[in-house]
């Protein structure tokens, strides 16, 4: 009987405890919200700081990542994922040097560079073997070199690529960039050339024009413009030209030579791993696209870093805004804190009130910052700008990454907690007696 009563008592006790625990949280919320509501101006200032930080975070990131993603996407279309070069990693030493230190030759003082032409041996076998690799989507042999082309009295140095049109198309989808004419014509015509839009503009070339091309050591050729391409990457469009492998071999005086094999992977992010495997398998230098375009990617990395610094600085300022406002409030509110403590709120309740207020300010700031950030991105995307540096575009390149809205709010909350921690602790330390006694008397 007594045991039953005890159990009932305990349950009643637990219920009461829980009700009280809930009551203190509710009271804390109530006080925190009411006090916030009653000082809108100060809170508005604190919120403004956070809003600014989040707005800049989102806008800056939208611009920076938009720019770098556009560039990366464009470069990934025109640039192969891995290039296999003709530099052998473990070249055989010359016959004499092989006997260095032996009876035949004690040392080889100065080896004259061989006049052997750099080339990839048995390229079609390597292409076939590459295509067998699981990570490789396509591979194409080509010959790259410098040539001069002349049209209407003007000459221009170009980076000409001798390709197998179909194979190359699988590695770098050139037909996506065709502005005028068609790539198919290159395969059909025996003396066609495809030029970048910048090359065409510089020389005033149109479809059907015949250019005179020449290179040292080779045989000059007259080539007819069959297509003009534009990758929207000015550094490429201004110098690039494509012709049939056979013609370029003739032009450069390198019959039957393939200087590189371009590879497209299923997953471009595997560039480094794939390049390493290819090097090990074939003994040729293989370079992933991240390395080929390393200097551009480094610019973006730098840009992202600077952006992070700026955002961190602004968020810090926002944090100081909250800190300043909260400290002011805590100092102003010592009377109220003393009252709340005298009617039975604990130190923890006081701490919670101020932390909660900081969090709410941060949350509202974060939400408004997100919203304004979104609007800013929409407006920026419409803003006309003529860009012709690394990437060609008529508007700001904006990439909207939804995770940054989440980051925005999370950062704001972290800043809010840290900024209101100090004032909240200070508030919770107020000794009611010191305040309530008022003046001594």
């Amino acid at each position, binding site marked *: 009987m007594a045991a039953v009563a005890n159990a009932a008592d305990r349950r009643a006790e637990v219920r009461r405890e829980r009700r009280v625990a809930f009551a203190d949280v509710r009271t804390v919320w109530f006080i925190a919200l009411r006090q916030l509501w009653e000082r809108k101006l100060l809170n508005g200032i604190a919120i403004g700081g956070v809003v600014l930080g989040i707005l800049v975070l989102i806008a800056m990131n939208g611009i920076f990542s938009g720019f770098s993603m556009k560039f990366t996407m464009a470069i990934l279309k025109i640039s192969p994922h891995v290039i296999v070069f003709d530099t052998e990693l473990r070249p055989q030493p010359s016959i004499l040097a092989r006997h260095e230190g032996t009876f035949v030759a004690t040392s080889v003082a100065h080896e004259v560079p061989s006049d052997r032409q750099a080339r990839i041996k048995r390229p079609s076998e390597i292409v076939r073997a590459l295509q067998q690799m699981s990570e490789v989507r396509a591979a194409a042999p080509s010959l790259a070199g410098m040539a001069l082309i002349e049209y209407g009295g003007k000459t221009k140095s170009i980076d000409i690529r001798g390709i197998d049109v179909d194979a190359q198309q699988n590695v770098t989808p050139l037909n996506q960039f065709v502005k005028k004419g068609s790539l198919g014509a290159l395969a059909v015509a025996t003396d066609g050339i495809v030029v970048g839009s910048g090359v065409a503009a510089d020389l005033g070339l149109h479809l059907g024009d015949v250019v005179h091309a020449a290179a040292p050591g080779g045989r000059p050729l007259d080539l007819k413009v069959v297509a003009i391409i534009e990758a929207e990457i000015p550094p490429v469009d201004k110098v690039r030209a494509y012709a049939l492998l056979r013609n370029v071999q003739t032009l450069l005086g390198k019959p039957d030579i393939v200087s590189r094999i371009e590879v497209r992977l299923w997953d471009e992010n595997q560039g480094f791993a794939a390049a390493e495997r290819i090097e090990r398998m074939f003994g040729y230098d293989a370079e992933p696209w991240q390395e080929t375009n390393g200097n551009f990617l480094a610019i973006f990395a730098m840009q992202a870093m600077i952006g992070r610094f700026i955002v961190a600085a602004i968020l810090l300022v926002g944090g100081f805004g909250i800190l300043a406002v909260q400290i002011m409030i805590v100092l102003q509110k010592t009377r109220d804190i003393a009252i709340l*403590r005298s*009617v*039975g709120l604990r130190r923890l309740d006081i701490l919670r009130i101020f932390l909660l207020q900081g969090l709410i300010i941060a949350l509202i700031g974060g939400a408004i910052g997100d919203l304004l950030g979104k609007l800013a991105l929409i407006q920026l995307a419409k803003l006309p700008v003529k860009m012709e540096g690394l990437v060609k575009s008529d508007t700001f390149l904006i990439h909207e990454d939804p995770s940054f809205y989440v980051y925005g709010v999370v950062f704001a909350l972290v800043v809010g907690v840290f900024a209101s921690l100090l004032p909240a602790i200070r508030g919770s330390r107020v000794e009611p007696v010191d305040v309530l006694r008022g003046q001594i008397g």
Partner: protein
Amino acid sequence: MTHIVEVRGLVRELSGGGAAPQTILHGIDLAVPHGQFLALTGASGSGKSTLLYLIGALDRATSGEIWLDGVEMGGLDDDDRAAFRNERLGFVFQFHFLLPEFNVLENVALPMWRRGIHRDDANDRAYEALALLGLEELWKRKPGQLSGGQQQRVSIARAVANDPALILADEPTGNLDSKNAEIVFDVFAQIAGDHGRTVVMVTHDKDFAMRADRQVQLRDGRILADARRGEEIIPPSQRMRQVSHSR
């Protein structure tokens, strides 16, 4: 348990930043029975507020014991004392402290919300307490819209609404004109008399002190005199004998 407050050998020292500790209360012994209206008097700086806040579990004694309703305050931690204040005590201060963001009813009900009393019940009880003080019409106003006397009556309503065993007031009439002071004093007398609550009130007003059930006078941190209403004030020598006797 006949005494709601029992103070034994209470000493409060202040260790003022390196200087020699200053003793504010030198061994106070005091017992207050249930339902008594006690006036605490004495010159400025005699230690009245210090004693009141110690009895109110707002401060900690240097030595000695404070028993409130059978609970020794020295054995409670900060949170327990906060809970004790919330459930058992009501405070009224000289500078009628109300929370400016909350209306009159909310100010009175807030301690009860904290205690876990259902919001509607708490608000009902707050309204009753306001009615007791003739303030029910003003329940929606913010403290800033009230006169000083009205504000002080609201803080009394807050102190009594929670139905506390003990109400502590530190010069509640000190900042009021004589008319309002009279009203406030009468309210305390009524609370103690008609409602059977215990009230300890610090006051400078000799007239009010005489009209309380009992008058305790402090001087330099010691009890100088202790008299029931109408009684002669007990001379200090006799008081000292009483103290040594009770030890």
